[in-house]
């Protein structure tokens, strides 16, 4: 089989599928009543993920090394990473809003790689001596996966910022455990109130059918059903029954963004350290303030600041989310912007 022709076919297909997926997710967010749209969207994302995996696999067979040596390959790897982390985030949040923000970014990356990169930059080329090392796979793949995770986390934070615009939000979930306690106005409510409260609370954020992403847990009958199942026992009791206070859509998005960034951050740490150890083994210095290195550190510092902002009084609410959202830009500068400077060790196999 002609691997090159297969690759050319696969890169266009993954772009087309992602474009369609994006439209599906957007329609499902705009018209939540149309059934199956979210499932179709997820399917599209899965197909795109497999197409890109097959594309990279074909490259690996063709070139004989892990395909991470030029811009085209790394773009597709990062698009693959975004689709993979998308599934994680979607599965954790059970909200179609994740796809609304991840699909366009994955689509844009594949579009750039497949359509606007000149053909001579798409072909697989032999590795330069400095990259001939097993560290290449370890360092570059972990770095790109961390970029993918951080981007998805930042995108979900952007979605959070959009749906909470103009609202005061208190955060749930941070390493000191703020938010695990009942908010004052929900303390000691009756079961009737409990269900209506939570419905209006989340209903204010979005239309009803996307509102109960966390509520379809047990019997699948919508947000109030779960609460009823708990409060059934409680209604028999005339006094003040206690039932779980559920997370709203905003809470969920915020927490998923935090968890995904929390996953990207260790990956980034490990990737940077792998790069440092490789540099020390190959060139004799684990840190040389090369622009790419420095920007990876800057990305690390920005997300470290985000993780700390969440546990700081007076810094909760939308501020950490703004920090996370600006992290999206920082990741892009680190990934592509630095190469515009065109110096340092990381300019191998890139464009300018």
């Amino acid at each position, binding site marked *: 089989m002609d691997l090159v022709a297969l690759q050319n076919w696969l890169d266009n297909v993954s772009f087309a599928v992602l474009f369609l997926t994006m439209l599906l997710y957007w329609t499902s967010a705009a018209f939540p009543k149309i059934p199956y749209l979210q499932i179709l969207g997820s399917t599209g994302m899965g197909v795109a993920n497999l197409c890109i995996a097959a594309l990279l696999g074909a490259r690996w067979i063709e070139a004989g090394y892990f395909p991470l040596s030029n811009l085209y390959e790394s773009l597709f790897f990062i698009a693959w990473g975004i689709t993979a982390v998308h599934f994680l985030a979607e599965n*954790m*949040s059970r909200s179609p809003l994740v796809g609304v923000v991840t699909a366009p970014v994955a689509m844009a990356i594949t579009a750039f790689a497949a359509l606007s990169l000149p053909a001579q930059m798409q072909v697989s080329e*032999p590795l330069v*001596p*400095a990259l*001939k*090392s097993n*560290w290449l796979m370890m360092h570059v793949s972990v770095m790109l996966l961390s970029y993918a995770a951080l981007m998805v986390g930042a995108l979900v934070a952007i979605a959070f910022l959009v749906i909470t615009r103009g609202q005061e939000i208190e955060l749930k*979930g*941070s*390493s000191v*455990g703020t*938010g*695990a*306690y*009942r908010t004052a106005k929900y*303390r000691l409510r009756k079961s009737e109130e409990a269900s209506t409260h939570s419905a209006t609370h989340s209903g204010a954020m979005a239309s009803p059918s996307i509102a109960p992403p*966390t509520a379809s*847990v*047990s019997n699948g009958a919508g947000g109030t059903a779960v609460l009823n*199942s*708990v409060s059934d*026992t*409680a209604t028999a*009791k005339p006094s003040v*029954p*206690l*039932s*779980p*206070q559920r*997370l709203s859509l905003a809470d969920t998005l915020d*927490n*998923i963004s*935090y*968890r995904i960034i*929390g*996953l990207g*951050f*260790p990956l980034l*740490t*490990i990737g940077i350290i792998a790069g*440092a150890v490789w540099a020390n*083994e*190959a*060139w*004799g*210095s684990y840190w040389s*303030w090369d622009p790419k290195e*420095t920007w990876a*550190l*800057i990305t690390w*510092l*920005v997300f470290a*600041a985000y993780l*700390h*902002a969440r*546990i*700081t009084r007076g*810094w909760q609410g939308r501020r950490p989310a703004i920090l996370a959202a600006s992290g999206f830009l920082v990741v892009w500068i680190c990934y592509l912007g*630095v190469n515009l400077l065109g110096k340092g060790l990381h300019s191998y196999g890139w464009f300018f």
Partner: protein
Amino acid sequence: MTSQNSFTAKVINIREIISDYFRKELIPLLADLRLAILLLLTIALFSVSGTVIEQGETLSFYQANYPEDPALFGFLSWKVILTLGLDHVYRTWWFLALLILFGSSLTACTFTRQFPALKAARQWKFYEQPRQFQKLALSAELESGSLNALPSLLKQKRYRIFQEGNKLYARKGIAGRIGPIIVHASMLLILAGSIYGAMTGFFAQEMVPSGETFQIRNIFDAGPWAEPQIPKDWSVKVNRFWIDYTPDGTIDQFYSDLSVLDQAGQEVDRQTIHVNKPLRHQGVTLYQADWAISAIRVRVNNSPFLQIPMAQLDTGGQGRVWGTWIPTKPDMSEGVSVIAKDLQGMLLIYGMDGQLVGTVREGMSTEVNGVTLAIAEVVGSTGLQIKADPGIPLVYTGFGLLMLSVMMSYVSHSQIWALQSEDGSLYVGGRTNRAQVAFEREMVEILDQVQLKET
């Protein structure tokens, strides 16, 4: 006597003031998370400046690129850059001071926040009153549930369970409380290791032709206490340097065959190094970093083989070429220029008029100006980067711990309390510090199953 007393009293007083200042002012300030966030973002911002402004260039470079009038953005002239040290951001006193402040903040934070938090997590208490459950967001009152249904459910979900009569406490993911402490400790270890390395290590570069022996002399960067690291009792012989090329002419790999010789000239170690595979000897590491053409060995007619040095020619950044001049008449009134651009063995020969006369390959000969020019060998020289860094073990330990602990820090510390009250109803409540969404799902599932067991 009294003055002596008042003096000691004063000293004690000053001591108290200082220790008070540390306890009440300085440490809380250093441990303030807002300071930590500010430091993280400030270090990030100054790091950006070092990637935008060219680092370590000459004075004339900055004068040419950052003129005083018009200054970039109205203020960024070469004078400002040099005064602030923006030409070497990462080595300025203020950047290093920021890093030290960052280290102090890390230390203060570990002691005033993280250890107490871990202690609190380990010293859990049973909840003995139903009202204690009211403050938890995820708590429920089950009218007829049984406490005995919980342990098996919680065990399935990998909780560690403590039970005493009608009270139950379960927890998992305490690693998530320990992780951040080790993260901070390993960052301190990396900072300490890098400072120690900068003080006691050195960097050197040597360009050595194939076949020659050298001692490490060309040190371009050394810490104030680097002297003991610089090797004096051994030298290195470059047995051979060569480049492997791919079939289409691009470089595949650089190799240097090196021997370490002791003072008597005896070989104590021999290794072939290439990029990504250095040679280590007594704490000093030699890396393959660069290369050049040092000489050609030629024979003119029946002369013996002569080694003639090649010099790198200025091409204005258009790639690297080396050249030399070979006389073709005994009185040196005529000769040819020989040019090489790599070690693949092809040489270009130019005549007196600057015109290309011909080419010759390594091991072949050619006729020019009526003489036979035989090229025996193009001799390469290897560019070695040499360094010693005694801080490496510390830094690597920090790296290892950091990787481990940053993964531990992803774990969410979840706690669940349960109480069977005297009137028979079961109170269950819980909280977690990171994974709110996943924990909510887990709690609801547990509550559902407890009820299922009842009915």
